[in-house]
């Protein structure tokens, strides 16, 4: 199964890190990706620039509107993502637990849904 691991943390807290701390965290993240790739769990992923660079797009009445910033103000902000291949949720949780920023913020694990031509259900496959 494919799982998306969304990495969140408080940007303000991370900004207070020293250059050395930040470098060492980033090296850890690169190591984590290397390990996941070596074990066949890593499909794709990327860290993101801070929310100050975000733009939110909506289409209403066929008109595109754009606004500054992320969709919602939250205590922790989306910082990156990993698309993982895992046997089941327990394996996905075990993998997500090794993502270094999980020590500072949180990692949300969500199964990916397969997009079908028809028969999709907004609430998942629940009958």
């Amino acid at each position, binding site marked *: *199964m494919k*799982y998306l691991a969304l990495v969140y943390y408080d940007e303000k807290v991370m900004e207070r890190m020293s250059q050395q701390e930040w470098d060492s965290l980033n090296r850890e993240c690169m190591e984590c990706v290397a390990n996941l790739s070596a074990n066949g769990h890593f499909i794709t992923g990327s860290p993101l620039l801070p929310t100050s660079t975000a733009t939110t797009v909506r289409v209403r009445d066929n008109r595109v509107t754009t606004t500054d910033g992320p969709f919602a103000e939250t205590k922790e902000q989306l910082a990156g993502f990993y698309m993982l291949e*895992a*046997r*089941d*949720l*327990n394996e*996905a*949780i*075990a993998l997500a637990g090794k993502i270094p920023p999980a020590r500072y913020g949180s990692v949300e694990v*969500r*199964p990916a849904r397969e997009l079908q031509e028809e028969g999709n259900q907004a*609430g*998942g*496959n*629940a*009958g």
Partner: protein
Amino acid sequence: MPPVTRAWLNEFYANESRRVLATLIRLLGDFDLAEEALHEAFTAALTQWPTDGVPENPRAWLVSTGRFKAIDQIRRKARFNVSYEDIAEQLESELTTEEIEEQEIEDDRLRLIFTCCHPAIAPEAQLALTLREVCGLTTEEIASAFLTSTPTLAQRIVRAKAKIRDAGIPYEVPGPEQLPERLQSVLHAIYLIFNEGYSASSGDRLLRHDLATEAIRLARLLCQLLPEPEAEGLLALLLLQDSRRAARISTEGDLILLEQQDRALWDQQQIREGIGLVLRALGSRRFGSYSLQAAIAAVHAEAPSMEATDWPQIVGLYDALLERNPSPVVELNRAVAVAMRDDAEQGLYLIDALLARGALSDYHLAHAARADLCRRLGRVDEARVAYQRALELTQQGPEQRYLTHRLAELDTY
């Protein structure tokens, strides 16, 4: 074999259906399909067994009959939706290669408990799902026990089952790496089920009593299947708490506190079993907070009276508990034990320090405990204020009556 009557089958169903269901869930990978298969299998038994006799291994017969029925069902659906065809074929191919072993069936019950209590499921849904799937209570019964509407509870169960399937929560007992955390969820769920039955605050008294019994049954099952020290500690705790059931509530339904309880009403058999389990759990050196709480309950159970209780030991156990799980409520209980070990003044000093920290200022039992100690020290005015504060904070009928009674008693001082 006894004659297969409807009554015999009903009893057989009550004893066996949850075991069979647990295995069907593993084999079919779907809670709803398994429930349907379970009912079909028992329906088949009802028509076949009275004439053909009970098969040699009735459990295995029910499992394999249920699975055949489910495959039929999937095949019927496959006529409209080709994706079911693969599922049916896969299930059929497994059918011929796999024998249904007794041990597997027992393991499946354990898998079912861990699946229902997976930490990725909301705690209130864990409880509902466990009572529904593992204990076989109806949705209506569970809703009435938790004072929720049936549709809300049904919705909760449907969502939890959908999450198990869609998010890929595995049907397994977790490995050594994940076991401690997962076991903690299972123990916590059982503990909460018991508490729901133990605090006779409102709702249908009888069913809540059933919930306490059900929690003990679950804890016992867990100990049989996975004899971990903390599981034994939890079972001990529940047995020891429950041993006081008959002495805790007066005929008028009022709460009777430990010091006024008629200890002759305590269930000695449960106490013996509980103490045996505590000793084993503590001896393992891999015990946790449930075992320590059970040890405290065991010291109370062994004491002939409040005064003759081994208070130094209880304070020591609270110290150990605080080291593991620091919490203001545990500190409060320790303060009360200190008041018994040393004197009321010492206890009051600790409670006042706690209240000054603001941790428990809205917790009615902190004020009630302060009030009791002030009363013992003859500080009547302070006691009155504290009882009144406690009364303002509690919502429970029996506790309100108890506090009002205490307040009235103060006037005679």
